[in-house]
């Protein structure tokens, strides 16, 4: 093994652990996903392009990416807020609130979807008041956004929380002695420090939302060109026993997600370097 490849430090056991990492990832991720590409490659290039460039497929890719992106944005803002409250303040029932954050992970997504639909439908608890304002949530892209926000909620909270817990209060005190306002301190001292964790949480929430099926099909209305998500189209292909078509769409989604995650990781790396340089 060449030295440059492993760039190893003094720690022994690199070869062993790296071997296990590769085997583990292969069994769980690489081999199953490579089967996807194999299945998709049974189509001719024209068929593949024809499947992907279909107006309904393109529309659903747009819907999926937009709603997932906005859901992750909302989670990035409010996730930080929730983490802040959980770390900085002591109050009764704190542990319960802390537990509630993880509920979207534990619930079957279909249950979440049905519950959200019944509340946000026009005759639901919240939906009826929104309807008076002319806002429709269930069976519109807004409904998809709500469902995807719901399932992505824990990610940002759980990535930001430990960073906030380890945060050294002396930094804030130093900022205060230098005459910074509270707002300035948050904006220029705390937030930059949290940014890598926020971006990680954002990326996780975003990636998770792209593939979400269970909760969305109940609240979206599944209208072609308007509220169809990519996973639903994959299901419709499977329903016609069109395995190749289904994997073609899945492959495109996989590539898009992977490129986006790479980009987000690159951003993080940039920020970390910038942080270290300061």
């Amino acid at each position, binding site marked *: 093994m060449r030295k440059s490849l492993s760039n190893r430090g003094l720690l022994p056991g690199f070869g062993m652990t790296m071997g296990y990492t590769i085997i583990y990832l292969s069994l769980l991720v690489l081999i199953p996903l490579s089967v996807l590409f194999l299945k998709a490659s049974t189509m001719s290039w024209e068929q593949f392009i024809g499947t992907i460039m279909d107006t309904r497929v393109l529309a659903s890719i747009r819907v999926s990416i937009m709603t997932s992106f906005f859901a992750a944005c909302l989670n990035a803002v409010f996730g930080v807020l929730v983490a802040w409250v959980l770390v900085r303040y002591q109050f009764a029932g704190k542990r319960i609130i802390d537990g509630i954050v993880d509920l979207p992970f534990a619930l079957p997504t279909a249950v979440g979807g049905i519950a959200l639909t019944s509340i946000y439908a026009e005759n639901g608890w919240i939906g009826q008041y929104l309807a008076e304002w002319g806002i429709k949530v269930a069976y519109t892209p807004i409904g998809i956004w709500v469902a995807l926000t719901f399932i992505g909620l824990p990610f940002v909270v759980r990535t930001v929380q430990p960073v906030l817990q380890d945060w050294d209060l002396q930094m804030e005190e130093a900022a205060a002695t230098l005459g910074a306002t509270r707002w300035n301190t948050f904006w220029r001292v705390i937030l930059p420090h949290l940014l890598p964790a926020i971006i990680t949480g954002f990326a996780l929430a975003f990636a998770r939302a792209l593939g979400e099926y269970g909760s969305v099909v109940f609240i979206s209305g599944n209208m*072609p060109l308007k509220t169809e998500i990519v996973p639903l189209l994959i299901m419709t292909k499977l329903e016609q026993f069109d395995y190749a078509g289904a994997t073609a769409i899945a492959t495109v989604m996989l590539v898009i997600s992977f490129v986006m995650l790479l980009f987000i990781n690159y951003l993080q790396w940039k920020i970390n370097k910038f942080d270290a340089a300061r």
Partner: protein
Amino acid sequence: MAAAMAGCSAAVPAETGKGAGGTTSTVELLNVSYDPTREFYQDINKEFASEWQQKTGQTVTIKQSHGGSGKQSRSVIDGLEADVVTLALAYDIDAIAGRGLIPADWQKKLSDNSSPYTSTIVFLVRKGNPKQIKDWDDLIKPGISVITPNPKTSGGARWNYLAAWGYALKTNGGDEAKAQEFVAQLFKNVPVLDSGARGSTTTFVERGIGDVLIAWENEAYLAVNELGKDKFEIVNPSLSILAEPPVTIVDKYADKHKTREVAEAYLQFLYTKKGQELAAKHYYRPRSQEVLQAHTPAFPDIQLFTIDELFGGWTKAQKTHFGDQGVFDQLYKP
């Protein structure tokens, strides 16, 4: 036309071979079925097990699996070792036959197109029928909101679609273009396309969306009986489609498990008087004229056409209407 055979009250057992199987004291069957048959097959299994016990002394346990018809079919193709499949439409069993697990002429093996019970498509409206919905042509009027699932993901939705298409054909002297226009108009009135029949029922019943739900007859009855007769009523259109949910043995696995004999008896049991009674109890239309007559108020006489008559069978209908770039996709071209 095939009612003659199902009418006999005594079972007409398939050749009760004294060969393989039937010698051990316990046997297990796996019945892979679709969503709404859950309660029906629970009853069937109980009755059949006790009858089989009396007849052969053998204890039979029947395991069931339920889900969307297409998904269930894929499970069998991908290796779920079902002894029998009881699905929503022939197309889903054809797909299994296409993989060589079942002979291609499977549908000829049992009487009545291998469909021991049938169903049809009816309307569910809100109590008092405020929008005065009587027939298919009321569904395309402006301002009527229609609930039906997505034909690309739901077997039931395909029946709904074909029923509407058939009505338009029959009322326009077989003009396909007019039929397409009619169905396109109908789908313009659909605000939500749920992914399955149960989902649509929930949307209509629980969420209060829509003026009319196009549904399986048995699903409509369930909605009325479970959710209150004071909220909904069933409207029978002048014309509808005969839905034939077929049943068959998965030869490859039945032979592998040596369960052919008991699996055949199990499917035959569906044709017996007891099996037919249970079908009627769960609002599936029995094939047996005698049992059907006994339940007449529940199953009013609707003029029915079959998918073979108007669409040339499932495979053709699927390709023409629900395949990619098929007619249904055309309806949603921007």
